[in-house]
């Protein structure tokens, strides 16, 4: 049974230079992002001005600044007090309003993502639970040769039936322009919309747990 853990979770590591290069790169990437996130939060929560400059292991310069990296660096190096013109403050206010909105948008997205992830886990869980009863739902790699052959046969027959079913449906709507039956994968799903329901039985989602509703674009 191949059980892959998606991540090691939170582990305590000693604060010294990471020996493995690949590990180091990943750590840099993640921590840099986290650092900027914390800096951004500090700015929003406490209304302070910050600049952070870091160099990557490959010597690329990453910088975060609020309101701007450049202005903070200049202010620091020249020891000049900041200019607080009213125009300046207006720009600031406008910018802060934008940031507020963006934060809201981000939070919503992250929530949606969390929900989708949970849904995915649930489906996985359900499938695993069913495998003891329905052997053909097991992952292909876990099936024996004979099981595979039999499953193949059944699925091929299903494929056949689906084809017949589809033709039947198409014929029933010969007056309605038929949909594009291109051989796309799932990439199209997010352009689905219920206008498609013209003349076709789009019933509400089947009474059991499978939801094949159309997903609308997010935000």
């Amino acid at each position, binding site marked *: 049974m191949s059980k892959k853990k998606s991540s090691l979770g939170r582990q305590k590591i000693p604060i010294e*230079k990471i020996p493995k290069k690949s590990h180091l790169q990943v750590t840099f990437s993640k921590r840099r992002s986290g*650092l*900027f996130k914390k800096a951004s939060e500090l700015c929003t929560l406490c209304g302070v001005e910050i600049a952070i400059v870091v160099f990557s292991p490959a010597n690329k310069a990453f910088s975060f600044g609020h309101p701007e990296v450049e202005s903070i660096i200049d202010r620091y190096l020249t020891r000049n007090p900041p200019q607080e013109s009213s125009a300046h403050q207006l720009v600031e206010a406008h910018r802060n309003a934008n940031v507020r909105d963006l934060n809201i948008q981000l939070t919503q997205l992250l929530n*949606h993502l969390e929900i989708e992830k949970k849904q995915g886990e649930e489906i996985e869980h359900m499938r695993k639970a069913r495998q003891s009863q329905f052997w053909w739902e097991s992952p292909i790699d876990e099936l024996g040769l004979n099981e595979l052959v039999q499953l*193949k046969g059944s699925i091929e027959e299903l494929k056949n039936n689906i084809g017949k079913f589809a033709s039947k*449906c198409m014929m029933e709507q010969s007056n309605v322009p038929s949909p594009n039956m291109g051989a796309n994968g799932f990439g199209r799903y997010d352009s689905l919309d219920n206008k498609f329901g013209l003349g076709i039985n789009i019933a509400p989602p089947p009474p059991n747990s499978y939801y094949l509703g159309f997903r609308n674009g997010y935000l």
Partner: protein
Amino acid sequence: MTRKKVKLAFIINDSARKATFKKRKKGLMKKVSELSTLCGIDACAIIYSPYDPQPEVWPSPLGVQKVLSKFRRMPELEQSKKMVNQESFLRQRIQKAKDQLTKQRKDNREKEMTQLMFQYLSADKIMPNISMVDLNDMAWLIDQYLKDINRRIESLSKNGQGQGQGQPQMVAPTMAINGVAKIEDNGQGSNGHGNNVLDMNMDAMQKQHWFMNLVNHGGGGDEAAPLSDVNNHQNGFWQNQFFH
């Protein structure tokens, strides 16, 4: 440490704000320091607050000077390439979240479709409540699944597994898998699907033939092939079917 969810907005209460500032500033400096040590890189931080005319810096005024010089020595393009402010940083994160969401939704849909396919297999019919788009995707999924099955069959056949383990037993007249899907005609009677029982048996016989071939092609007494876990597993499943 407090684990209350903090609202991401300017803290109105002065003392609360100052307290938060102290804590978070300390945490931020610690994070910069850790990043620098863990990855062996140069870094600096400058913080201006209303609580101090002088900025707070990390690692030290001299250290900051060095890093800033190094930064300023780079060509303008290199300086600005990875430069962000709050807005642009948030936009980046939003884009990343969008991409992750799209992928997750796509994966979930594929999972749901697979479940539906299994449903069809075990229910003997295709429920008519399916849209054309879903139908199309289902057809695609089935093809992909068949591809994977064939690939796996090939690789297993090459390794000479899955032969002669009491095969003849498995060919019961009632196929263990009920799920030979049939179309459910909406009350249109049985056009050619009337003799379901006969169909089933026909399939059974075809498959029996298939299995017998497998057994014979076992490659002349390759019973010495080690019984891998897969095969034992398989036996277990088969046995279950008979006890229905």
